[in-house]
């Protein structure tokens, strides 16, 4: 299956890419499995996802948790907690 991965902010910098299309094995059925698989693959994305304390996830543009299922054609985004707006 093919899944689009997006990285934003410092995760994008650490991953060394803003997006990629990956084809994990069918044993990957949720976000947790996808993260495990990406870590196992090594490189920038593995570094970006090495510490998940400040990582948020969206599946198909909706906030999600690691138990969210992933299937072919999904868009999975990894990013830090948001900091938009103004006047903090």
């Amino acid at each position, binding site marked *: 299956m093919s899944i689009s991965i997006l990285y934003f902010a410092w995760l994008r910098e650490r991953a060394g890419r803003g997006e990629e299309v990956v084809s994990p094995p069918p044993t990957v059925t949720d976000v947790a499995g996808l993260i495990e698989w990406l870590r196992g693959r090594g490189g920038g994305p593995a570094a970006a996802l090495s510490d998940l304390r400040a990582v948020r996830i969206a599946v198909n543009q909706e906030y999600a948790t690691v138990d969210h299922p992933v299937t072919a054609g999904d868009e999975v985004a990894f990013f830090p907690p948001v900091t*938009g707006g*103004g006047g903090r």
Partner: protein
Amino acid sequence: MIRVQSEDFDIGAEIAQFTQGRTDVGGLCLFVGLVRDVVGDAPLEALVLEHYPQMTERELRRIEEEAHRRWPLLDTLIIHRHGRLKPGDRIVLVAVCSAHRQAAFDGCRFLIDWLKTRAPFWKREEAGGQHRWVAACDADLGIAAAWGDAPDDGGEARARLPGGR
């Protein structure tokens, strides 16, 4: 009404259009967030705003709908910029009009509070030749949560990963 753009906006023109021809508005509340010139002790050179376009639109629309669900608002407007900004530049405009001022104030404040914890924008500050991603502010999460039914951004991914890694 939602707009996400790199260009600046004209507050006067936006407000004129927002209330154009209406005679049912009793109160208009507006918030504009601007780029401040100092980061800690260092002068800020630039602020770069990155975002997640498809998701941004969707989240802002959801936040707007939630505000309309909670208060009797006649109209709402959110304009958020992305890209490279300088000190003094406008970042975001939130405007709400209602027959009554309480709803206008509450709705406006709710929109900016939720936006800051939900809309997928990230700020990078450039100061002293270095750049630094702004960390999310715990206070902002508390402020948003105080509105009740706090929206969930999924929380810390690690905590939910099998084995807690």
